[in-house]
């Protein structure tokens, strides 16, 4: 095997990485320094024992450490442990060790070394390993930078998405004068998602509830949710006629969504004075009507999903509403359990849970209480957005 440092230097360009060479023998430092210099590494720092090495690491940024093991005052293992532990450095640390000493080599890795270079120094191997580990570190750094940037952008997009949603006060200002209390909950999944709810004023006595879930996850679903939001806000005609309104939205979405993308939706018109909820749905989880008297029933959430076929009609259904009734709207994340499909909740499970939770938590507190009741591990990252809307018919106008 060739040990000629020239074979490495001939194909190198200058590298500005800061490399700290730690060795108690001046002759070793000089040798390593000249090998690295010849290979284009010019930002070299030197330390003659462990204490000095740690002081250097504390005072200036270093990209890599080349470390001898046996040194006075503090040995290489301890430098390595301090670098990884107290100093929290994740830079490559190459430890020099004799090939024959297997225990020592194992201890080096235990202490946090990235790799071992054989001692006595073999120029070609040393330069190759230094390059390899610097390259690896740079790749990790660039991936981490990229990931941080993406996370920042996703957070920014998520807060834009949340800002589309009306405030609690705005929602109350629409619902309360029309004889209802309405509270909402929205939590994005770890990826961006495509859930969206909206509340519309229709006339002096009625208001509209809209809940939509764009298929898939991530940026595409979120962008489509933005577009649906704009379409829904702009479509003022027929807001009092759920079937017609949903059919028109479907036609818009057919133009907008690509094949394989669609939305599920529920649109209801709350008319407390008239004692009714008129609604139309497109593959939405069936909302649950909890009657004041203790009975419950699911509303019909079925209907062709939006954005797949133009010209589809949607039936308008009607449910009677009385003072004291509650209607719970929810996205599929509330009941679908993809880890244990058999444990997915059925509408009657949710009706029972909602009824139970309502005995101790009402209004805005209801949502978190229901979530705590449904999900054993509240800190677990959900795979999908979770949206809840709770309507209570108060009758107070």
């Amino acid at each position, binding site marked *: 095997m060739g040990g000629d440092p020239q074979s490495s230097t001939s194909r190198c360009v200058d590298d500005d990485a800061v490399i700290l060479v730690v060795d108690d023998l001046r002759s070793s430092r000089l040798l390593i320094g000249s090998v690295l210099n010849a290979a284009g590494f010019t930002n070299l720092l030197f330390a003659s024992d462990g204490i000095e090495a740690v002081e250097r690491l504390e005072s200036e940024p270093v990209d890599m450490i080349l470390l001898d093991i046996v040194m006075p005052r503090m040995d290489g293992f301890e430098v390595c442990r301090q670098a990884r532990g107290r100093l929290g450095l994740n830079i490559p640390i190459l430890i020099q060790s004799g090939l024959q000493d297997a225990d020592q080599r194992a201890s080096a890795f235990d202490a946090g070394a990235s790799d071992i270079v054989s001692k006595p120094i073999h120029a070609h191997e040393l330069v190759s390993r230094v390059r390899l580990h610097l390259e690896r570190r740079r790749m990790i750094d660039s991936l981490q930078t990229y990931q941080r940037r993406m996370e920042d952008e996703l957070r920014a997009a998520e807060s834009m998405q949340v800002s589309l949603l009306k405030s609690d006060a705005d929602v109350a200002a629409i619902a309360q004068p029309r004889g209802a209390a309405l509270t909402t909950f929205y939590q994005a999944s770890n990826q961006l998602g495509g859930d969206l709810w909206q509340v519309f004023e229709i006339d002096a006595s009625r208001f509209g509830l809209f809940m939509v879930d764009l298929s898939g996850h991530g940026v595409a679903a979120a962008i489509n949710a933005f577009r649906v939001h704009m379409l829904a806000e702009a479509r003022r005609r027929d807001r009092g006629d759920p079937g017609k309104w949903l059919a028109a939205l479907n036609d818009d979405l057919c133009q907008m969504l690509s094949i394989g993308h669609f939305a599920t939706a529920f649109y209801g018109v709350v008319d407390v004075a008239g004692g009714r909820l008129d609604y139309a749905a497109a593959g939405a989880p069936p909302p649950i009507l909890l009657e004041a008297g203790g009975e419950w029933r699911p509303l019909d959430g079925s209907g062709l999903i939006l954005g797949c076929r133009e010209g589809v009609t949607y039936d308008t259904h009607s449910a009677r509403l009385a003072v004291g009734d509650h209607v719970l709207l929810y996205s599929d994340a509330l009941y*679908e359990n993809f880890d244990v499909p058999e444990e997915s909740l059925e509408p009657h499970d949710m009706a029972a849970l909602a009824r139970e939770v309502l005995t101790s938590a009402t209004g805005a507190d209801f949502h978190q209480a229901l979530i705590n009741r449904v999900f054993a591990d509240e800190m677990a990252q959900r795979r999908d957005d979770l949206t809840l809307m709770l309507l209570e018919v108060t009758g107070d106008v």
Partner: protein
Amino acid sequence: MDYRCETRGDRFLVSISGVLTFDDHEKFRQVVAEIADCAPATVELSLATTRMIDSAGIGMLLLANDKAGRCGKSLRLSGVTGHVAKVIELSKIDQLIPVD
């Protein structure tokens, strides 16, 4: 999700097993490619052993149906039960893809 393909007489049978979700996007591409490449003009997508499907999974079925149509083939769904049957009933995708 796992899948198995076989030609049975004049139809091409694709069986999907497990849970069909967003995470299966790459794998389902292979299913769509198999549907495009198969010889029979009738494709049956059996969901008899599919335990659960999410909205992305429904989207994949729509993509498969679109691909089959573009290749002059007809796609049908079969064996829908349990959660899958409920999702299909709710979303009415039997209006888009025939369900046996």
